[in-house]
């Protein structure tokens, strides 16, 4: 029983990370109908920037406690990610807003490659170590163990998601975002500037990616230039699973995907009598995706995309 609990906790941690990243994808898709393939790589740049910042701060002020370094790292990563994201939007996506569907998609792939190359040049190809900033001793919860870092991931993700839901449903900005997502032309008639809203959407998504990036490298203690691409893909899967464009959907989709991967890897061997083992764990995400898209294309909670003829 404690194994099941442990796997559930593992899945919750993983899912929280996916949810944070998925939110960025889903919000951008909601307003632009675009899969921002480069989102995972924005996350990576934030993570590496945070690592550099933490290294510098620790060198300059060795007495700083670990948790403060973590917070400062996140604060350093956010502007980097936001700036990068806005830059990409301005240079690569805005000119293609009215181009045929394929163009921005292909451009996004190209941008992703460019960002990875940039990261390779700045930080090198080797795996970098992220220091242990929070206490390492694991806590015990009914037979399962949970480190402080993982607990922070779960709590932080939950807080952020709650905050985002509040922002989107209860503030003026949130209303403007929902209006633009619904129909940008009519929204502009109502005094909303779609360009500004799109910029804000990218910015929020990027900030979330920054947090996700720092939490990922904190949990796994490594960072490198390729660390963002695969989590990015899986997070997009999560966003689609929950219902693209739907913020609550991204959260639910992320958690569900994390749980599926964790439980799948843990139990697939037993379930199939050893024929399929944890070597197939990566395909779960994709099989789930295909299943959802075929059986319930609008996702678990229903999609919310712009009304485009």
């Amino acid at each position: 029983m404690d194994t099941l609990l442990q796997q559930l906790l593992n899945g919750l941690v993983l899912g929280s990370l996916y949810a944070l990243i998925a939110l960025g994808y889903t919000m951008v898709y909601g307003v632009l109908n675009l899969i921002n393939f480069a989102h995972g790589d924005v996350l990576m740049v934030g993570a590496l920037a945070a690592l550099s910042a933490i290294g510098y701060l620790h060198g300059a002020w060795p007495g700083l406690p670990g948790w403060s370094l973590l917070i400062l790292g996140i604060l350093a990563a956010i502007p980097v990610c936001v700036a990068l994201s806005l830059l990409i939007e301005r240079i690569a996506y805005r000119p293609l807003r009215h181009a045929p569907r394929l163009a921005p998609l292909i451009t996004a792939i190209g941008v992703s490659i460019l960002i990875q190359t940039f990261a390779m040049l700045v930080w090198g190809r080797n795996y970098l170590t992220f220091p242990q900033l929070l206490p390492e001793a694991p806590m015990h919860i009914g037979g399962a163990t949970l480190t402080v870092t993982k607990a922070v991931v779960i709590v932080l993700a939950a807080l952020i998601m709650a905050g985002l839901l509040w922002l989107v449903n209860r503030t003026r900005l949130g209303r403007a975002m929902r209006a633009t997502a619904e129909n940008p032309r009519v929204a502009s008639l109502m005094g909303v500037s779609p360009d500004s809203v799109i910029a804000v959407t990218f910015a929020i998504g990027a900030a979330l990616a920054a947090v996700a990036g720092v939490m990922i490298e904190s949990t796994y203690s490594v960072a490198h230039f390729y660390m963002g691409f695969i989590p990015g893909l899986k997070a997009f899967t999560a966003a689609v699973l929950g219902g693209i464009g739907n913020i609550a959907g991204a959260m639910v989709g992320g958690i569900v995907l994390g749980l599926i991967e964790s439980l799948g890897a843990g139990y697939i061997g037993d379930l199939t009598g050893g024929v399929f083992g944890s070597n197939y764990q990566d395909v779960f995400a994709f099989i789930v995706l295909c299943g959802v898209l075929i059986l319930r294309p609008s996702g678990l909670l229903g999609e919310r995309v712009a009304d485009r003829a």
Partner: protein
Amino acid sequence: MPVPRRALWTVSLLLLALAACKPSSQDAASQQPVIKIGSAAPLTGEIAHLGKDNENGVRMAIDEINAAGGIKLGDKTYRLEMVGEDDKADPREGTLAAQKLVDEGVIAVVGHLNSGTSIPASRIYAEANVVQVSPSTTRASYTLQGFKTTYRVVANDNQQGSVLADFAANSMKVKRVAIVDDRTPYGQGLADVFESVAKDKGLDVIGREFTTNKANDFNAILTKIRASKPDLVMFAGMDATSAPLARQMRELGLKVPLLSGDGSCDPGFIRIAGDAADALTCSIAGQALEKMSKGEDFSKRYQAKFGSPPQQYSPYSYDATFAIVDAIKRAGKPDRVAVVEAMHGTRFEGLTGHIEFDEHGDLKNGTISMYNVRDGKLNYLSTSN
């Protein structure tokens, strides 16, 4: 369409012009006849630092031989020349590099670095009768293809896996073992051998799990392993994967030793794993440099020549070069086919130990050394054979 056609012509002419600018390898001014030895390694890409190291080992050997007067065959004295190619650690690029070396007229080749590159390239060398001595390819099937030209100067994964299993059973005295591999040719091969030898020695393999060489979350599989209460976790893969794995084992309360192969047995593991590093016991194919009798001397000369310390396999590529030269001397002439015939009888004491080959081209009695981690450093334990 005038514009695109112009573009097409310009581009093709440009490419051909660039190709023609390939630096010529003619030794116009040299009087002395030359024997070319090829070196194929990844000089760009993720493991460029290891590939460059391989090439440096060859270069050092060749420079030493030339400084001592070159090779005397009959009444002619030959100078050695190294031809280096970049295989980018990619199978396709590896075959291109191999073809280039063959075209260049090399007598023999030291290379490649990984199995995924050595194996496809070996076909090209075999067809051209060019001896290929690898300093680092450990996959067993490399020498089992039936080619007369494939050799290696390190122990292969069969030997390494056996020694690991033996060590686990007899030295570490564990009973229940869980095995994880990273689904790469190296990881899977090593894990398979370990599993079968471990079972032969009466160990209980309680689980076999898998990951990939790009993954960093092992909590799910480690949780599953934890439920079966192993005494040991054996991981076959590289340090970038095994180090986070070690950490997560500790975080999940799985306080058992981690046994791994040469992919994890380096300072990179210790750096990334941090406090969890002392769970590691690992093997290195061959001897560590410090343990070789002339190892420190080699290290000093290498540092003086290249400005950085030897990485991993340069002592082996160094020895591989000497093995080739030994064969050339016995062949009596710089002829590929003669060298292929002579290579089999190679026998000498190299930097890394006794160099002699079995009927497949594997190193006879290849040694494996065991290490663990103490005080943030690799700590030598024992050597097999």
